């Protein structure tokens, strides 16, 4: 549940979601659910050559299982805190 909680706190911030098929989409995090399905607003495709057809869709829903990375705003991350929380979560906390 850790990352669900973490992403809830990030709602409203700009993130870049990189999918397993290499597509990267930047947008404002609108919402997230427990499966880490992600809804983004004001989306822009980062690498427009691979998927030119989805240049600017206003909102999109991304299935959690196809996400490879979520790139976070540098100032939005307290790495030590996240590190500790992840360790606790892994121990069954």
């Amino acid at each position, binding site marked *: *549940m850790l990352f*669900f*909680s*973490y992403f*809830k*706190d990030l*709602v*409203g911030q700009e993130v870049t979601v990189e*999918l397993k*098929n290499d*597509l990267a989409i930047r947008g404002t995090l*609108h*919402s*997230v*659910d*427990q*499966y880490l*399905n992600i*809804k983004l607003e004001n*989306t822009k495709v980062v690498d427009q050559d691979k*998927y*030119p*057809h*989805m*240049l*600017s*869709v*206003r*909102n*999109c*829903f*991304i*299935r*959690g*299982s*196809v996400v490879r990375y979520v790139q976070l705003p540098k100032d939005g991350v*307290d790495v030590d*805190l*996240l590190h*500790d*929380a992840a360790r*606790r979560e*892994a*121990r*069954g*906390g």
Partner: protein
Amino acid sequence: MVAGLREFALRSGDGSGKPVLDESSGEELMHVQPSVAVALGNRPVEFPGTLYITSRKLIWLSDVDMAKGYAVDFLSISLHAVSRDPEAYSSPCIYTQIEVEEDEDDDDDSDTESTEVLDLSKIREMRLVPSDSTQLETMFDVFCECAELNPEPVDEEEEEESGHNWVFSADQMDVRGGDEDAEWQISQSPTSVIGHSNGDEGLAQPMLELQINDQRFEDAEEMVHESETKDHH
């Protein structure tokens, strides 16, 4: 479970033209959108047709050709979006990306040309264009609902060996399961949950360092070295 887009032409015999669903597994019809065109990959749009959205998959059935129809499981739909950019596509539509199994011989463009033989399982993009574009938001919302109904299936065996069973010590706590119901959180919580324990006070305590000064725990090597050193004095 079939991955990717496939042909589907199983219609019920009652004359309604509705698709046959797998009721035994609990599949339900969630939404019907008449007068929808479908465009697979870069292929020209196919019309007229009706879109049936079930709790498991998306089905488009042609209104004129009873043998023509397509279906894709929500499990295979990587993303969906409302596309209104005329530069991206001439009509407002729901844009979807379909997860396909990567083949090493895959040539990106070959499967999306208007050739005679179409391999549906290689289609990666699909657009659904309703004649009534005011329906797009409703369609988007239904797609979201159905996607949420279809999370990745969890294998019973997998769960046993999952990361939850990491062992850190002999007296490890029992692992607690996650919530069953999907809940969308769209408002920021007033305080961050990071840094707070989940209620298990034991784990929230700072780690205590154990100080053991018993010589029996010293490394054997060290002890030998020590006694040798002593001899040289």
